[in-house]
């Protein structure tokens, strides 16, 4: 079989270049957008994904980890009664007001009170044991590297949270928060900072490590039905992280905005690509008509155009992948939250190829004008 589609693409690459660029940039935009969305909204669940706990127990119906309310500390006893539970740790999460030493005004911060012992589950993936140990010091806090300028302090400097003086003993990375700044402290320090008299040192969450993490789903279901120790609900870490991210994506309007943008990018890419392909087909119309006169069916000619569209999409994607990898590396270097996983990358690839296919189908419509009789002049 003579590779008409590919040979034409190579020979007349200038003609196809705009379509390749359109597919490539559309793919790149979708990819970067997806990476940003995953990165930014993923940081909503950084408390969960940065920790080693298998189960999260919190106030019933909590939609996102930052919306927790205090629960009865006695629930800890209920959790420990379950034979599958190996250990339990309390987690205090509170909104607070930060005043730095510099002239930075007030800053809304989220204080995470954790157990600083070296094998603690909370933030086990984000903090080194040495760094955690520094939280044993009273009124010690750790902030994210990317937030330190915003907070107007340096490591070793002091600031006030809810009017209580704290000292920054170290910086972490990858703990940027959504809509505020994360501050880590010990449970004892967090209790000091809590000004709500109703909480009286109660934990916002209890997290549990299981003897067999694979059982998380079953244990969470088992714990959910029991109310004897006060109202609470149990989720697997995975489910709670997903719940938090989805809350931000879907219930805040931000997700809808992103989807809208993605649709626009798709539309613009499809218009440019299809117009280029239509022009390319029109440029070869007499040759296609000759083939049709010789008995090559319009159906077979359609395949040639579709194959061209596929190659345009594939080549555009190769370019987008290379450029995307560079840009993502650059973003990571600048602490911009970007995350990519395989399903999302594949979805972007499928979307870009779909764009090429839709454009190809649009170009095929112009093949209907191939009337071989028009060659007889």
């Amino acid at each position, binding site marked *: 079989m*003579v590779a008409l589609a590919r040979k034409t693409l190579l020979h007349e690459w200038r003609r196809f270049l705009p379509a390749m660029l359109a597919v490539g940039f559309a793919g790149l935009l979708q990819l970067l957008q997806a990476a940003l969305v995953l990165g930014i909204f993923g940081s909503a669940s950084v408390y969960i994904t940065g920790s080693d706990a298998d189960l999260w127990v919190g106030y019933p119906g909590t939609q996102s980890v930052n919306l927790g309310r205090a629960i009865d500390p006695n629930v800890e006893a209920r959790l420990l009664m379950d034979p599958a539970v190996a250990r339990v740790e309390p987690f205090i999460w509170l909104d607070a007001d930060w005043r730095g030493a510099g002239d930075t005004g007030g800053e809304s911060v989220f204080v995470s009170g954790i157990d600083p012992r070296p094998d603690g589950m909370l933030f086990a993936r984000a903090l080194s044991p040495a760094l955690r140990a520094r939280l044993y010091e009273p009124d010690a806090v750790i902030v994210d590297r990317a937030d330190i300028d915003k907070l107007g302090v340096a490591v070793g400097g002091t600031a006030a949270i809810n009017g209580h003086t704290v000292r920054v003993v170290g910086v972490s990375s990858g703990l940027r928060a959504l809509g505020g700044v994360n501050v880590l402290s010990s449970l004892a320090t967090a209790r000091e900072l809590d000004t709500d008299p109703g909480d009286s040192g109660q934990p916002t969450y209890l997290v549990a490590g299981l003897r067999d993490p694979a059982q998380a789903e079953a244990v969470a279901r088992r714990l959910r039905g029991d109310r004897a120790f006060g109202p609470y609900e149990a989720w697997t870490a995975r489910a709670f992280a997903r719940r938090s991210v989805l809350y931000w994506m879907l219930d805040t309007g931000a997700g809808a905005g992103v989807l809208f943008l993605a649709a626009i990018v798709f539309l613009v890419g499809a218009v440019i690509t299809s117009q280029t392909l239509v022009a390319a087909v029109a440029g070869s119309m007499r040759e296609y008509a000759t083939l049709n006169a*010789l008995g090559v069916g319009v159906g077979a000619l359609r395949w040639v155009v579709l194959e061209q569209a596929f190659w345009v999409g594939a080549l555009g994607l190769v370019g987008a992948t290379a450029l995307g990898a560079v840009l993502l590396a650059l973003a990571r270097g600048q602490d911009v939250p970007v995350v990519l996983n395989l399903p999302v990358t594949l979805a972007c690839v499928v979307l870009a190829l779909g764009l090429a296919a839709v454009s190809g189908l649009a170009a095929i419509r112009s093949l209907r004008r191939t009337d071989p009789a028009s*060659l007889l002049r």
Partner: protein
Amino acid sequence: MNAPTATAPALRAEAIAKAFVSGATRTQVLDGLSIAIHAGELTLISGPSGCGKSTLLAILSGLQPVDAGRVFALDAELSRLDGAALERFRLWHTGFVFQGFNLFPALTALEQVELPLDYLGLSRRQARERAERSLEEVGLAHRMKLLPAELSGGEKQRVAIARALAKQPQLLFADEPTSALDASNGQIVIDILHRIARDHGTTVLCVSHDPRLIGHADRVLAMEDGRILSDRRVTPAHALHGAGS
């Protein structure tokens, strides 16, 4: 109108009519025309532009349907076939040569000729061999690997002829095949078309207003205003039947 012949005609039209409608104007191009074309000879239809000769070619080759009348090609009645069946008929039985050479800029001469053969279901090797033989026959054995941009006008038309010839069609249609060529290249193309009719027994129907062609055709039909004005045989040895109207 045409007298019956010793051999059945390869192409036959009976009282065909064709009109084109453009807006409110209706132009009757052909009206009750009948004609018979025979195998093994080069038949030329000549006439001024707008006389309906190209429309006649399009109808006899199955590229356009008739409004009225019947068209027979080989054993098929073209006027009864639908679009897909006509495509199939053209694939198996016809070759075309157009005034514009209509070659794909990206393909070599050999690939241009191979391309339609792929759709005949030939193996890669068979298609290659047939394409090479056709190019040799039109004298382009040494130019097979060249792109259209590297060929002269005459060579391009010879590639187009090889493309039509490689299908081994019983019917070969040529529309103004020499109009875009200089004298010597035109002569080469005419000789090739004539040889195809003689050597392969192909029915070659050529439409042209190029006077140079007249001396080389076996039969010349002069056309004007949608009617055949004269029908004469140029080579007496081939005169098998009398002239039509």
